[in-house]
């Protein structure tokens, strides 16, 4: 099959077991060119294991996978030349300077001569590290390290980029800036495969794969996923959110209660009857109800609802 006609990522029934534990359980999906494809799920859902199999760091126990048409079992060396990979820990060499790290990865990807000079300049400007070339990576703020790691993963201009929880531990401002960079890359045709456990980050993705306990429980765009939720959700404001959660848990017609700051998201089986139940239950418990209104479900609501539909509990 010619490479141009194959999708960047094709995965069929991919499975990885560690002893008795199945980390990734018969997962099937594919990723389109130029797409930001999000892998969403709590810690331990199998995101990192899947990425390691796709990047040739871990052999699958079962199933198949192709990256740019190349087999993840037998063509790992060729795959590695076509992908960029950034691990959770921004694994740069902390005792090397910014410039030395770029130089190292350029060398490892065979980027030399004029092209190296070009890429180096591009990375420094993209990561806004101009002037910090000679600083040891260890001393950089986490947000800088993150952008440098991204730059190093992109030194050879790979058509496919794998990011494993690229924003963990980074402050919200740096996180936003990082997503802007990712967005720009995708706009220029790079396929981005990104995992995260921050639900709010999932909004940046074109399509989302929801993973729980190694199983793929949903795959769609964030908007479509939100529409999938069947049970109505009520936003409830009270004087004591924590007290309200315990009062509402197990009330008839109430499926789930979650706190979003001072607001409660209460999943009910029927909107009108549910609002009634909530109001009465809270008043009986001596809480003041400030407002009850239907709310647009967040991705977290979607996630919880889908896990419940599967009959399981959320991990993590």
């Amino acid at each position, binding site marked *: 099959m010619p490479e141009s006609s194959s999708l960047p990522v094709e995965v069929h029934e991919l499975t990885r077991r560690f002893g008795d534990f199945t980390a990734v359980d018969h997962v099937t999906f594919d990723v389109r060119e130029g797409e930001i494809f999000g892998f969403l799920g709590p810690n331990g859902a199998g995101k990192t294991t899947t990425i390691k199999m796709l990047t040739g760091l871990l052999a699958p126990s079962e199933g198949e996978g192709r990256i740019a048409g190349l087999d993840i079992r037998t063509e790992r060396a060729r795959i590695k030349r076509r992908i960029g990979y950034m691990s959770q820990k921004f694994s740069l060499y902390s005792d090397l300077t910014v410039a*030395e790290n770029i130089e*190292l990865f350029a060398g490892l990807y*065979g980027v030399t001569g004029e092209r190296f000079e070009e890429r180096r300049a591009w990375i420094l400007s993209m990561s806004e590290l101009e002037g910090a070339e000679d600083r040891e990576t260890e001393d950089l703020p986490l947000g800088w390290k993150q952008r440098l790691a991204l730059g190093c993963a992109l030194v050879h201009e790979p058509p496919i980029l794998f990011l494993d929880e690229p924003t963990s531990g980074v402050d919200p401002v740096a996180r936003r800036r990082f997503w802007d960079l990712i967005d720009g890359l995708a706009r220029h045709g790079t396929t981005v495969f990104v995992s995260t456990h921050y639900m709010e980050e999932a909004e940046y993705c074109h399509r989302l794969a929801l993973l729980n306990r190694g199983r793929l429980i949903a795959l769609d765009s964030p908007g479509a996923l939100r529409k999938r939720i069947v049970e109505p959700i009520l936003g409830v404001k009270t004087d004591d959110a924590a007290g309200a959660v315990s009062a509402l848990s197990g009330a008839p017609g109430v499926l789930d209660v979650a706190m979003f700051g001072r607001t409660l998201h209460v999943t009910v089986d029927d909107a009108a009857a549910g609002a009634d139940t909530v109001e009465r239950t809270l008043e009986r418990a001596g809480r003041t109800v400030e407002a009850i209104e239907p709310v647009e479900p967040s991705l977290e609501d979607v996630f919880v609802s889908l896990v419940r539909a599967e009959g399981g509990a959320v991990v993590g």
Partner: protein
Amino acid sequence: MDVTRLRAIARKEWVQLKRDTRSMILAFVLPLFLLVFFGYAISWDVNDIRLAVLDQDHTQESRELIEAFEASGYFTVEHYLESADDVDGQLVGHRVLGVMWIPPGYAADLAAPGRRAPVQLLLDGSDANTATIALNYADAIAARHGARALLQGRSLTAPISLEARTWYNPNLESRNMIVPALIAVIMSIIAAMLTALTIAREWERGTMEQLASTPVTRLEVVLGKLAPYLAIGLFDVAVTVVAGILLFGTPMNGSVLLLAVLTTLFLIGALGLGIFISAAVKSQVLATQIAMVATYLPAVLLSGFLFDIASMPIVLKGITFLIPARYYVTVTRGIFLKGVGATVLWPQALLMLLYAVLGLTLATRAFRKELDA
């Protein structure tokens, strides 16, 4: 094999090494320190053997014999004993290493043709090594003294004198034996220790995974990591060789080029072993400890550095064939002291080549799970 990738690894390794004080000390300070320290501390030369004398003959001849011992420079007479009862006390109390007992009638026996003049030497055997050496000295002195007595006397039979001569190290200076072997021992330790740190560090810091995600191959990583340490190892050997010559006056009779070639083989093996250990245990602390035990003890005990391999029990002797330092010790001693060339050292060269190949193979195989061939 891609030279660009190999060079990228080698350069990175060199920069990391330069910034790591611990590695720098290990690479550049420790070898010379060990050479000087051990070079001065270890010596098997036995001088000033303390002696007590029980002279029951009291003749000019007996005094001449005592003087001959003192004049040799190896013995000093600490006490003159009065009676045989004092002998035990001298030895038990470690006051002297030996007692020379000249019985009454010594001079008369010496003068009488065809008669032997027995003199007893009692040695403290609790330090067997020193005692053996003292015995040899005493034998030699007595023989020479006896020969002179014969010549002065009117014997008709020409005395058969056994003339022992030691080759290669005519003064039997143990330092000349120690320094070349010491260089071999030091390099066994340093080489494995240096690389023991390098791969484990990648695991501890999580960079191995990043490396594994690039197209770099195992052999490129191994060779790239090996290259700077090999350069350092060769530099260390050069420095210790020069120091050995300048500080200890060790003679250098052989080919420097041959030494360099064989040293390279040995270092590749030892460095590879360090990488293997490092990759197997994935912890810097554990890797250095294992590297230490796996190289230091065999290199000191079983390489022929301290103990003569020929006189080892058969089992230990068999084990020494597995110790690469054994061959390297033979090589350094051979080249330094005997000035021998490849025609003599080829078995060692062959075995060290085997060791180098083995070291590289082990190192490359060690992380086959993480990196593609």
